[in-house]
């Protein structure tokens, strides 16, 4: 779409939206948010970029291919599951520790996995469709 206003606004918005999506991901355990919502939000920011600048540019700023994101996400989620196993608890049992005074646990890693898979799925479908329509 060839609109100067949209492009200018998008440049500002994309960063903000991405930050907000991370914020949603982080706070999800205690307040509304989480990996799924955060992932959708991040995907919408890239989708907006895709509409403003075209799918090729959107792929450039994502850098990684959407399917790789899906794979990385699954890997993170499975790894989170195995953390429990290696801590001599059942598979998927939460393992919690402290990182600089902040409580972090394997559910966060799992949620990051969900976040990545959701971004990968949405972007993969959206950008490919956009490219096919332009072709």
């Amino acid at each position: 779409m060839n609109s100067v206003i949209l492009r200018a606004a998008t440049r500002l918005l994309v960063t903000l939206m991405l930050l907000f999506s991370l914020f949603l991901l982080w706070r999800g355990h205690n307040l509304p948010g989480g990996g799924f919502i955060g992932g959708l939000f991040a995907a919408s920011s890239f989708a907006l970029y895709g509409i403003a600048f075209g799918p090729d540019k959107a792929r450039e700023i994502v850098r990684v291919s959407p399917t790789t994101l899906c794979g990385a996400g699954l890997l993170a989620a499975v790894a989170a599951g195995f953390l429990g196993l290696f801590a001599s608890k059942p598979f998927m049992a939460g393992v919690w520790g402290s990182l600089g005074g902040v409580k972090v646990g394997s559910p966060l890693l799992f949620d990051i996995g969900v976040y990545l898979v959701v971004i990968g799925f949405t972007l993969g479908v959206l950008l490919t469709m956009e490219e096919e329509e332009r072709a």
Partner: protein
Amino acid sequence: MTMLLAVLSGFIMATIAPQLVRWIRPVAGWLFAILPAALFAYFASHLDVVRAGAPVHVVVPWVPSLGVDLAFYLDGLSLTFALLITGIGACVMAYAGGYLKDDPYLGRFYFALHAFMAAMLGVVLSENLFTLFIFWELTSFSSYLLIGYKHEKQGSRDAAIQALVITGMGGLAMLAGFIVLHAAVGTASITELLAGGDILRDHPWYHGILVLVLAGAFTKSAQFPFHFWLPGAMQAPTPVSAYLHSATMVKAGVYLLARMNPVLGGTPVWEITLTTFGAVTMLVGAIVSLMKTDLKLVLAGSTIMALGTLVMLIGIGTEAALLAAAVFLVVHSLYKGALFMVAGAIDHEAGTREIPLLGGLRKTMPLTWIAACVAAISMAGVPPLLGFVGKELIYEAMLEAPRMTLLLLFVTVVSNVFMVTVGALVAINPFAGAPGATPKKPHEAPAMMFVGPLLLAGLSLALGLATLPKDNFFAASFALPVAASLAGREVDAYVYLWHGINLAFVLSVVTVVSGLIVWKAWERVRPLAAALDPYIFAGCERGYQAWLSGLLRVAAWQFGHLQSGYLRRYLLFVFGTLVVLAAPLLMLRGLGDLAFEPIDGVLYFYELLLCVVIVLGAWGAMRAQRHLTAIILLGLVGYAIALLFVAFGAPDLAMTQFLVETLTVILVALVLIRLPGFRQRSSTVTRARDWVVAVSVGVVVTVLLLAITSTPLSMHLSEFFATRSVPEAYGRNVVNVILVDFRGVDTMGEITVLAAAAVGIIALLRLRAPRRRPEGRGDEGLASPGGTVDGTQGSPAVEGEDEAIVGPQAQEVRS
């Protein structure tokens, strides 16, 4: 925990192998051999414990609340298998580094090979039948990837699918058998089954379970009439043939039979079925090996022969037969792995595997020749190699077989004669005489490729020599513990090289001499064997093809009717099913008590406004003249519903709904933006039908909701999550805690589906061939699935499918 790591390490290595190959390609073979070698050492450290007769039992709790554990079990049988898998694995990993040195997909290859190694370890170490099944299927998948490795060749792809379909069908039958078994005796734990005595044999479902389990074992171990997939699998690169399709994977079926022998075996049905199938398979394998000229196919035939021998020995079930099976298992893996690697080295250096073209390689490839000779002599069963020990034991067992003694003895001698012939064909023909007319000028294979076969051949010799004394290392560590696992009790016997001149030895001499005579007359015998091809080999394969194309025809028929490619048809089916299934149930329940509950408290103005917006939006979407207008109005409906969620205190749900609506509008707009406006194409009858469906769906859903709200809600789960969320999962957002912690496994399943769907959708979008867009189709062309992806190489089945799709579409256009 180390046991878990031992199994998982292969999978971990598999995921990083493709990246590693980029850095270490020239020495990839040596480096990848380290992990299997380390695992070999790890398993070898258990030899003492297992030799003492105490199986190692490791339990990792998985879902303790449901009593599901990840348990491993290491006794004589599984330890010997584990050592074969890791030991031959190390040789093959190194070998593949040389064999596929410049292959662009080497990373992919090592991925599948490591995954296979780990899965195969899982099969032989699983303590639970269901865990065993999962690893079993993983070996089938990795075998599929490896057979189809040269994926640009039609032959490779067909062979890969054939192997997957046959072993996969058997695997599913086996799973059904395990489920019935579990239902029958209430446990799937191997230790509990072994301790259960006659519990399964006396059960009324015994025969059903037996048939299903045998279907799994026979398909995997290429027993007649499923044997034809194994020669097909020779399309795989030779390291794979050496590893999967001779030394390890095809023995998974034998492993299962061996494992189940103390539980399922010992009945007349078991004995007769196994000996019959085993004996027939031996003969079939012998004929296959005689009629081929390709080194690998000759060896594949002899592998079928060996698998038949093992099944037959387990079927006979006497202590002598089980001991012979235990020894022959090791003997065969060692010499066959080596011979396959030799065949691959010849192919790699001379450019062909056709026996008539080869000759005189002993001067150019001396080390490979030595390995070939030692392995072939072990195969032929000549002292002092381990093969001799194995064959003597087999003959002794056959001489005292309780049933059909003479017939089985005859079959065994005949197939062993052919084993000698095969050995001579592989070790003498390519190496002796004058240099053949080979496509490449041969020279010695690189070190990566001769170390493995030399090592395995050397082991055949060393272990053979080790059996000189009556009490020896080989018998104590391998033969007797494996036989004990097979028999389910201690086996007290001696395994040693020289038994003196007895009937078995005379038979051995006769075998070797006749084998050499057949080898001399090979040129004349081969056409005779080839004449049998239509009955024993091509015939079975044709049966499979006919079955497969019949299956595809049925699929194409139902595909044409159900999967029409029109969204409106799908919606009709989905909504129609909902109405047809839900309406009678609601009627049965009775509708008398349903009523719209009066609103207690105040109805706020904005709530009413949202409802009005939803109704108007839906109506507007229906009446819209342009696609874009309709989409945006639908988005409006979605947003209004999300706002209702906000009003009723479900922020997570609302936020998700907002985002999904936004993305849906973008997605649908991308697809539909180019389309012309709506035009009325449907007949009045069609529209009336759609009205009926729409109104009935509306009514059914409304009644359904009323029925749900009038049922008192059970707060049990809500309370559980609300009270446990903070103390046990440290999270105050209950929704998210449920998603990532309490029910994390569900979410894991969902994101796996999501990722798989993404790959599928992207592939479909990308692969869309130039589509036929017949004129006058208008917006219908968009939903057409008609274009074949594989237009150029479409098999008849694919074309048939295509026609079936065109049929109903044509009708639709006419109506």
